[in-house]
């Protein structure tokens, strides 16, 4: 056993030097943490006067497994900014984009960063699961949030500063089932696939399964997959043994795209209905020609013939060759547009004169909820709790080009719905 003392430079001397070094380093770390905590304590800009030009922060998934949606959202925001910057602006609005990644801590970090920089409102985060973590932070600090793609139940109910432009899919998702049943009224055997470890997919499959039951259909096979799965041979084989005439999938873009491809490769020829997670043109390169014929219900149709949707489509095509925009891009545009229009209305009425940033945020939230908006999604407004009210939804079929790389969501029917309320989103 080693004891203190002994010869200089001996083992005990080394040990005591090491111990002393540990204590010193630990004290330095503790001092640094304390100093940073004290310095970061009073950096809330809410009490400062509103600056001449205001900034809206967007925290969207540019990395992680949701980045396919984030790329769509980035495009939507950039196009909206480009279009609106040419209109008259009593008070200029700028956009600051931050990566909210695909997990909860990153979304919280991005929200905190943007709030500390003094944004007047926030757009994001991409995933509903992230919203449950990050939105309460904005709510506590009184910063308006417009969610472009959170469709899970309960998002606007997080607080009075939380709203969304993404309609819940409990109303939308079953519409594509009706289309499939209309195309083949003989369908009686349905197989269901869903990503078991994903909040959006599990919520959406419950909606699909309830809708199937209401139409007198009981799934002959319910297969659980995982978001990170690449190989779906086992669940597909198990499902195909039941000879399904319809397959209903709730998954995200990458796993869902691979699942469709492998279903077709393993010989399934029947109809496929998919949920909102595959509602992005980014699935085309994943499932390629095997995407062809997939049915999907949507909150946006590129075929909607209104001036603002034509503008949106034109700007999108100028930026992306000849491709057509998807729902997530349109919803991101809409999130930016509603904030912009609410801000300009408020400014014109003098509601932003001589107020602090905190008060401006509160007034902007009230104005946002009070207005009606003509957007690429069609006319929308908000319920007092922040839920979007959208009157028209669509069912599309994926139509792939001969090259198997490009495709489009082709509108097959549009449906007027009185109100849209809650549901899951990617």
């Amino acid at each position, binding site marked *: 056993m080693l004891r203190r003392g002994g010869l200089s430079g001996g083992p005990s001397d080394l040990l005591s030097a090491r111990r002393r070094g540990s204590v010193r380093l630990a004290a330095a770390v503790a001092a640094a*943490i304390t100093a940073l905590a004290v310095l970061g304590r009073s950096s809330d800009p809410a009490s400062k006067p509103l600056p001449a030009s205001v900034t809206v922060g967007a925290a969207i998934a540019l990395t992680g497994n949701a980045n396919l949606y984030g790329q769509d959202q980035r495009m939507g925001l950039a196009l909206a900014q480009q279009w609106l910057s040419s209109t008259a602006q009593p008070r200029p609005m700028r956009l600051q984009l931050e990566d909210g990644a695909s997990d909860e801590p990153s979304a919280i970090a991005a929200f905190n960063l943007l709030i500390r920089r003094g944004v007047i409102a926030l757009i994001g985060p991409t995933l509903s699961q992230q919203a449950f973590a990050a939105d309460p932070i904005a709510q506590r600090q009184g910063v308006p949030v417009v969610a472009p793609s959170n469709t899970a139940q309960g998002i606007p109910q997080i607080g009075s500063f939380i709203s969304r432009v993404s309609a819940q899919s409990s109303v939308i998702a079953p519409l594509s089932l009706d289309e499939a049943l209309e195309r083949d009224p003989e369908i009686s055997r349905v197989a269901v696939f869903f990503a078991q470890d994903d909040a959006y997919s599990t919520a959406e499959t419950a909606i699909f399964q309830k809708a199937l039951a209401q139409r007198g259909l009981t799934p002959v096979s319910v297969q659980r997959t995982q978001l990170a799965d690449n190989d779906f041979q086992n669940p597909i084989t198990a499902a195909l043994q039941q000879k399904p005439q319809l397959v209903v999938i709730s998954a995200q873009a990458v796993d869902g795209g691979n699942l469709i491809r492998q279903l077709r490769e393993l010989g399934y020829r029947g109809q496929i209905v998919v949920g909102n997670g595959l509602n992005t043109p980014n699935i085309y390169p994943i499932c390629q020609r095997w995407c062809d014929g997939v049915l999907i219900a949507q909150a946006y149709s590129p075929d909607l013939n209104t001036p603002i949707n034509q503008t949106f489509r034109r700007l999108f095509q100028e930026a992306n060759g000849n491709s057509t925009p998807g729902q997530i891009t349109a919803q991101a545009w809409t999130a930016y547009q509603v904030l912009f229009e609410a801000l300009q209305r408020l400014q014109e009425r003098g509601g932003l004169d001589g107020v602090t940033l905190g008060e401006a945020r509160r007034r902007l939230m009230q104005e946002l909820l009070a207005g009606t908006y003509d957007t690429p999604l069609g006319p929308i407004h908000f319920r007092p709790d922040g839920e979007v009210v959208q009157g028209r939804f669509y069912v599309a079929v994926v139509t792939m080009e001969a090259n198997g790389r490009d495709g489009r969501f082709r509108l097959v029917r549009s449906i007027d719905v009185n109100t849209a309320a809650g549901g899951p989103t990617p």
Partner: protein
Amino acid sequence: MPDNGLLVQMILGALLGLSVYLPMAAGQLSLATPAFYAVGGTLAALMATHADHQGTISLGAVLWEMVVAGALTAALAALVGLPVLRLRGIYLAIATIALVEIVRVAILNLPFTGGATGIFGIPQPFGQPLGYIGLSGGLLALAGWGCQRLEGSRLGRAMAAIRDDELATRCMGINTTRVKLTAFVASAALAGVTGVIAAHYLNTWNARQGSFDVAITTLAFVILGGSRSWLGPVIGGLLLTALPELLRPVGDLRLVLFGLVILLGPVFFPQGLITPELLERLGRWDLRRLKP
């Protein structure tokens, strides 16, 4: 400069790094930390949301959750530790990864944990991140103090002896199973208690918080920071949690740079940033100046 929210995440990272370090100090490569972290967080989420707290919760209630989570994870670790710690090296690592997966799948499928959505609306004990810094920083100081005391204690020396040569240690009459189990249980309790703070801080808790990815991330804390002193994982956890956020100004390149740091860290610092030699130099530093 990191904001206080990030500082909370950094301290939580440091605590998880310490949890990986404790079994490693006894020569055991255990990746079970996320499993106990998930259990602690889930317990806190259930306890806090089942009572009617209406958005806020007292600090006393959170401390009580930490006590319960610490006890539960320690008991769980004692239960699984005995059979699992018979394995060594890579086999132990694989068994603990299996434990992480079992806990993850259990949380995903249990009827009361909210499935994939998890539990949301977890009430807050503090209005500002500063409160969380106090709570998690206090826990880190306590854990650091315990580890520092451990290094000079009989248990700590037995752990170091097992790390160097388990067979020789057993020949000296030390009950190596008990020492290894103690380290494993302490690690589990620390991870469980950290999970409680994280669940409140994140507002929401689901099975993804305790996944295999977290095991790898926390292992990276120890590898970059160094595994021969408790300060290594602490500094590794603080740095690696902060780095992606501090690299935000470089935009899309930030994850590339982060990857490079993880890749090049072990190349330039094979024993980690904090080595015993560094601590010795630090301990002697002023002696040389004051007594030339």
